[in-house]
């Protein structure tokens, strides 16, 4: 066996990770007081599955990712547990974290493609990240990098090029190759394609899906694009204003949403027409996200929810899981079928807008 | 399209004037304790500069005499001369107090001139770009290649040592860095979408510069002027220390120069300490203000 096959075999033996986030709360320290960006969020990523984390900007998706990676700023209060294969990785020491980041969890962010070092060739940057964790010769690391380039569909010859010679989409693919190089059991992708145009997005998502199928890694995909989630993820979690409002199997959550916010997201999402059927109009959700320095007492969506009743403004709904694994945080979850019909009418939301 | 003036109950359109913007900057500064310390020092120094003639017990060039009628040389601090006397029998306190005036005049006038020249250069080069930018920046490059101290020594020596010439030399030296810094700030501002929009709407260059560019680079200009005051004071002190100061006025640099040339730099601490501390405090207070302003005005360093 060659050294490379040896290395590949060793890395391939890493099992897909199981990630369990339990009662995660994150409060950023700001000089106006604590900012409760995440409030009591729990979810589980089973080994080899992909979880889609969706919600509008500012609802705390990146904060969840940063909390898992221990990348939050100093003055932040974090409580709860993040169990990676049963071991809590919240609040580990820097040294212990070294063993976790990249080798067990790797991260791809939206801005990663801009964070490549402009004076080092791409290959050296990947090799550097491999050598930081594996005691192997340079040539072997380079061979591994070339292999990863092939996985993301880039020719190995371009390893010698510098970031400025790559287009945005190619740089993002190079970053994905880097994130894959140690075959971490858990891949966190925070909006990996936002800001790229649809063709580029499609190319990158195709690669990510391919990786998921071939390498069977566990993954969290953060995005605001529910269509991408519906094509990529087994399970979906919807966040709103720092809370998890709905989660479950993707088909259940996106096709039969039980939370009014998910219904709103569905209706607001532009779709291509299907021949022979008349297309739903686009409907936007009125109003804006509440200020989390002073979170509302009741349901956080109540100010924008067309179905809000007195109870909603007074009491926070609990996230309740039904037997099919579909969890919803809404006082009126059992009326979901009725809400779904109403939510498809632009009138329903317009009435709420007028009331705001 | 609008034939008759339609009625409206809208209140008059108002925004912040220059005054309000200045007030806002001031309020920002007050939020930073270092900047407040700097401003307190600066205010006290300014008051001393203004009231120096009334505060100084003697004329700075008046010779102190002993009871026996001899020149009172290098006397340590006493009740009559709280900061002692110089090797030529002058009262150190009075010289020190008059020194505030020179520092302020040199600092303010030079910084004002530097501020105007670098702003005009930077804005014109950055905003118009192209050939104008090339030409102006080549001029700046040439200016930048002139070594600071040798140039000032030669220039002052040729022009003659007077406050006006020193200010002139300082201005010639410091506009060039400012022009570069302000130009790069303008380059970022110029690319803002609202500037592009204003051009699309038909706005004149003057309108865009006055309305969109200048207010948004005010921060950089202010910082540069603050720093220029410090540079100017230090340069004047260096020139005077080298003996190129205006002989008709008393500056801190000159005090140090006389102390040095009379060989008392190591012994007469009462003569050396006041001007040194004056320089240190003045320059530090300006840096503190600049730093505090930077920190408060930079939205990335400050969370709402």
């Amino acid at each position, binding site marked *: 066996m060659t050294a490379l096959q040896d290395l590949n075999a060793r890395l391939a033996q890493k099992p897909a990770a199981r990630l369990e986030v339990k009662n995660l709360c994150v409060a950023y320290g700001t000089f106006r007081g604590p900012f409760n960006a995440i409030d009591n969020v729990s979810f589980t990523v089973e080994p080899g599955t992909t979880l889609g984390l969706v919600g509008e900007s500012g609802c705390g998706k990146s904060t969840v990712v940063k909390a898992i990676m221990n990348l939050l700023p100093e003055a932040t209060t974090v409580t709860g547990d993040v169990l990676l294969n049963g071991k809590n990785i919240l609040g580990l020491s820097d040294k212990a974290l070294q063993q976790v980041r990249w080798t067990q969890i790797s991260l791809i962010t939206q801005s990663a493609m801009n964070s490549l070092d402009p004076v080092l060739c791409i290959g050296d940057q990947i090799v550097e990240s491999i050598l930081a964790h594996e005691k192997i010769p340079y040539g072997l690391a380079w061979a591994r990098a070339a292999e990863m380039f092939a996985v993301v569909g880039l020719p190995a010859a371009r390893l010698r090029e510098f970031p400025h010679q790559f287009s945005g989409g190619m740089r993002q693919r190079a970053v994905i190759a880097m994130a894959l190089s140690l075959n971490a059991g858990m891949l966190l992708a925070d909006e990996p394609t936002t800001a790229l145009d649809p063709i580029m997005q499609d190319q990158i998502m195709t690669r990510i899906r391919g990786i998921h199928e071939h390498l069977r890694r566990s993954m969290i995909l953060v995005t605001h694009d529910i269509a991408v989630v519906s094509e990529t993820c087994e399970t979906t979690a919807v966040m709103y204003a720092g809370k998890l409002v709905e989660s479950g199997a993707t088909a259940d959550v996106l096709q039969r949403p039980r939370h009014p916010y998910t219904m709103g997201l569905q209706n607001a999402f532009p779709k291509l027409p299907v*021949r022979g059927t008349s297309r739903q109009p686009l409907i936007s959700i009125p109003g804006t996200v509440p200020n989390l320095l002073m979170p509302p007492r009741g349901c956080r969506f109540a100010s924008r929810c067309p179905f809000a009743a007195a109870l909603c403004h007074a009491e926070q709904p609990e996230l309740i899981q039904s037997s099919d694994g579909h969890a919803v945080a809404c006082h009126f979850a059992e009326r979901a079928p009725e809400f779904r019909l109403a939510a498809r009418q632009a009138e329903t939301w317009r009435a709420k807008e007028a009331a705001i | 399209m609008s034939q008759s003036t339609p009625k409206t109950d*809208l209140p008059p359109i108002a925004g912040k004037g220059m005054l309000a913007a200045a007030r806002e900057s001031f309020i920002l500064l007050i939020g930073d304790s270092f900047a407040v310390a700097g401003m307190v020092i600066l205010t006290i120094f300014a008051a001393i500069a203004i009231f120096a003639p009334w505060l100084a017990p003697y004329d700075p060039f008046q010779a102190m005499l002993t009871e026996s009628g001899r020149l009172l040389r290098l006397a340590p601090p006493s009740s009559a001369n709280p900061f002692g006397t110089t090797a030529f029998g002058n009262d150190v306190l009075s010289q020190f107090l008059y020194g505030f005036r020179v520092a302020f005049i040199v600092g303010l006038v030079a910084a004002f001139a530097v501020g105007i020249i670098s702003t005009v250069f930077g804005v014109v080069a950055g905003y118009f770009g192209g050939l104008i930018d090339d030409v102006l920046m080549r001029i700046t490059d040439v200016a930048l290649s002139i070594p600071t101290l040798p140039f000032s020594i030669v220039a002052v020596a040729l022009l003659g040592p007077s406050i006006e010439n020193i200010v002139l030399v300082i201005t010639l030296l410091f506009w060039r860095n400012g022009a570069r810094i302000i130009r790069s700030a303008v380059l970022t501002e110029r690319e803002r979408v609202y500037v592009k929009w204003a051009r699309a709407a038909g706005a004149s260059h003057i309108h865009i510069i006055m309305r969109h560019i200048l207010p948004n680079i005010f921060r950089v200009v202010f910082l540069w002027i603050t720093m220029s005051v410090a540079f100017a004071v230090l340069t004047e002190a260096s020139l005077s220390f080298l003996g190129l100061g205006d002989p008709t006025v008393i500056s801190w640099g000159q005090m140090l120069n006389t102390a040095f040339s009379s060989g008392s730099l190591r012994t007469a601490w009462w003569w050396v300490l006041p001007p040194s501390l004056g320089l240190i405090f003045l320059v530090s207070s300006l840096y503190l203000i600049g730093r505090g302003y930077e920190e408060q005005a930079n939205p990335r360093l400050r969370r709402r």
Partner: protein
Amino acid sequence: MTRASTPAVVTAENLQTHFQARAGLVSALAGRTPPAIRALDGVDLTIGEREIVGLVGESGCGKSTLGMSLVRMYEPTGGDVLYHSEPVTHLKGRALKQYRREAQIIFQDPYSSLNPRLTIGQIIEEPLKIHGIGPALERRALIARALDHVRIPASTHLDSYPSDLSGGQRQRVAIARALVLEPRFIVADEPVSMLDVSIQASVLELLDELSRELGLAVLYISHDIATVGYICNHVAVMYLGQIVEEGPAEDILAEPLHPYTQRLMAAIPNMTPGAVRSRIELKGDVPSPQNIPPGCRFSSRCPFATDLCTSVAPELATLADGRRVRCHLYDGAIAEAYPGLTPPRAEIAA
């Protein structure tokens, strides 16, 4: 042009906007000039009254350059821009300023399109001041009306600053600022691509309403072909500085003909259950507008490319249903050269 539904407001005729890349000092001295960047290379397009024309294509294909050339932010290097049949291609000075009142542009980024130091009132008043319109009282009335159009309550927001507004509200203010001069033509350059999905619809709806109520001609630029169908009557697809397909929105979305349009639509993820997207892989990246491939510009990536495609550039041919397509598959040339090859029909619809 077969489309004569409404009177034309703006027309591009064989419009070209080439940029001269700046030469380095050495090559400038040597007298060498780098090849021109042919960002816009022969575009014909008409936008009528009360009409929203969608312009789609990958980033870098020249959409913004077309928008900017139409509102005369750029001076075209060839062809013509007609405004109500009058050429405005090379207007200067006063005449250009007058045209700027009639043609306005809205940019993508709602966060940097408003000067953070000005109040909403000042921001919307600015164009009026630039054009020396009215005494203060009349200006106020116009501002009130513009804010009313975009449904922002003037009473509460006149003195607020952009930082007090959400992204959607800022984009509305940007629209109000464009409307206050009562233009006849608006270019909306990706007005919603930086907004949250949940509020995109409201901005699109607003554009639609304004176009109908005020009779505006709107060029709606987007890289996302999915949003185009909601508000546009007519769609043009661009590739590398040229229009490759153009026609009524429903037709193009239902059955894209040009291989590139098919690829664009196949890239949109689909959440309809059971829908299978056709996977058209494209080779390589978009060529640089400084180095345009010979023959069909899409031939370097087209899965259907033949030898003919790499040598002869196809014309924008008008089909029987009035649609225009720039591809040899539809102009009969391939059928002639390669009998037996049939045009790929759309594989998109589920």
